């Protein structure tokens, strides 16, 4: 996989930082940016910005229809991006890669086009207590509409899934187990392959929310045997507005279309239509062409670095962050130890509101997130309204963590 100078065995964040123009900026006069909010959205490397810019400057046209050079170039680039994504997660064919707006839309697509035709009142879907709202609300809407029973794998106080309880829930013969590969709050990396194997043994299909996993460590959807796997471009160095639904070809093939319109059809008469082949059947209307091309460039960029190197870098940095934060009196960290989690660290600080913490950190140039991170039930479980969250990526260094810790001492000083 290594093919660029950045692809050393261990990743050199100092070199990588030069690829991200935004990291040069000051957020206040004389105060450089420390970006620790990549779980919300990652920054974008020059290569991605250039790929999108080049599309608009050189090849901009609508895809799949025009018989002219621009349309052919744009179509080739869009489909090349799909092929890159397929290879990146080891899908069997690009036909299994549906471009959506984001993870949320991909989950909704499955809820509408797979779950609605296939589930009946009384059927069970298993979710977990650590889901992002995007993997909760679509199922709540479905449950209310179709009298579907939702069950939840509990989260332990350590931020791990209670897999014994999962065994018991599987006795209900669920039709679907939908869960996150990695928690966006407590950072837990769930034993996804085992959860899927057990779901299959119980006769259920699986949907994996990969929004926090695909950007951060190698994901092989065929090795996992995931039925549906979904993620967003913007958390993995790509632009906003582009996401991915991976589905096993036979499943996608059997599903009715999601949105109706242009592109998703083969033939149309006034009162009927014949849907297009995969994956176009699920891509109604003009898609996010430049964004797909940008995502393709992001996949190239990450592949050049090597996802194993990305994962190793984040493991080391997370361990460092957990150690440094634990030194600060009053910091309370949620989630499992470093070896069971990715680069996401949610914490509370004394009895201070996370808004105050993150606002004062912002004054020091340190960008973290404050709130419930779209996981209100998980915060309720821990009996806290909100947390501050620092999340890391390839461009972060130990110096960034040091700035975070210094910032927290400043918070202490202001509220002393």
């Amino acid at each position, binding site marked *: 996989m290594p093919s660029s100078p950045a692809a050393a065995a261990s990743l050199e964040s100092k070199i990588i930082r030069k690829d991200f123009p935004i990291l040069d900026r000051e957020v206040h006069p004389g105060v450089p940016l420390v970006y620790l909010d990549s779980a919300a959205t990652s920054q974008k490397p020059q290569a991605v910005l250039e790929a999108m810019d080049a599309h608009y400057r050189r090849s901009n046209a609508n895809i799949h229809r025009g018989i002219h050079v621009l349309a052919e170039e744009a179509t080739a680039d869009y489909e090349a991006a799909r092929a890159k994504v397929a290879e990146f997660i080891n899908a069997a064919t690009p036909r299994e890669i549906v471009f959506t707006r984001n993870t949320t839309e991909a989950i909704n697509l499955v809820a509408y086009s797979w779950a609605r035709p296939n589930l009946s009142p009384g059927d069970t879907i298993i979710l977990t207590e650590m889901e992002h709202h995007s993997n909760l609300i679509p199922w709540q809407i479905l449950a209310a509409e179709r009298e579907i029973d939702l069950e939840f794998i509990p989260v332990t106080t350590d931020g791990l899934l209670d897999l014994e309880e999962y065994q018991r829930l599987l006795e209900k013969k669920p039709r679907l187990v939908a869960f996150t590969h990695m928690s966006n709050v407590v950072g837990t990396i769930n034993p996804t392959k085992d959860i899927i194997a057990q779901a299959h043994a119980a006769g259920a299909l699986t949907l994996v929310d990969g929004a926090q996993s695909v950007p951060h460590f190698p994901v092989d959807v065929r090795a996992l045997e995931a039925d549906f796997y979904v993620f967003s471009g913007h958390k993995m160095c790509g632009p906003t507005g582009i996401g991915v639904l991976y589905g096993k070809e036979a499943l996608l093939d059997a599903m009715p279309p999601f949105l109706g319109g242009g592109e998703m059809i083969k033939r149309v008469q006034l009162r009927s239509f014949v849907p297009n082949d995969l994956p176009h059947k699920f891509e109604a209307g003009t898609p996010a062409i430049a964004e797909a091309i940008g995502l393709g460039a992001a996949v190239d960029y990450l592949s050049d670095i090597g996802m194993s190197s990305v994962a190793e870098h984040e493991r080391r940095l997370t361990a460092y962050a957990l150690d440094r934060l634990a030194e600060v009196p009053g910091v309370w960290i949620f989630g499992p130890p470093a070896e069971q989690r990715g680069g996401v660290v949610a914490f509370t600080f004394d009895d201070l*509101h996370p*808004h*105050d913490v993150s*606002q*004062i950190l912002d*004054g020091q140039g340190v960008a973290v997130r404050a*709130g419930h991170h779209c996981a*209100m039930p998980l915060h309720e479980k821990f009996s806290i*309204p*909100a947390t501050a969250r620092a999340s890391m990526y390839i461009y972060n260094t130990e110096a960034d963590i040091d700035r975070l810790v210094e910032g927290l001492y400043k918070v202490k000083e202001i509220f002393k």
Partner: protein
Amino acid sequence: MDDLYREQIIERYKNPHYRGVLDPHDISYEDDNPLCGDHIRIDLRVDESDIVTEAAFSGQGCSISLASADLLVESVIGKPLEQVKQIDKETLLDMLGIELGPVRLKCALLSLKVLKAGVYGLGEGQASDELVE
């Protein structure tokens, strides 16, 4: 940034003057800021000529939302309800004496939204941002 944490804000946050609940009360309203989980309740007692005689707030939130609630509640005591209805965003921001970005503005305005929804006699969940425009 440090301007945001003026002494008055920190002081009011740490030692609020009007924190509590009034039981009984003539007017009570509560609402959340779903963005951050902040929750504010405001109770008022009014006399026969609709003048606020006592006021208190309770709930949880950041320093901006709680300091704002404390200052706001203080400012309505002795005022006729008709005058309370006239309090707008600018009045409150003047009281706080700080400039706020769009996200923190919601923190500051939660208490005003709750106060006005209560004074206008709105039902649960009917408080809207229009009240504080």
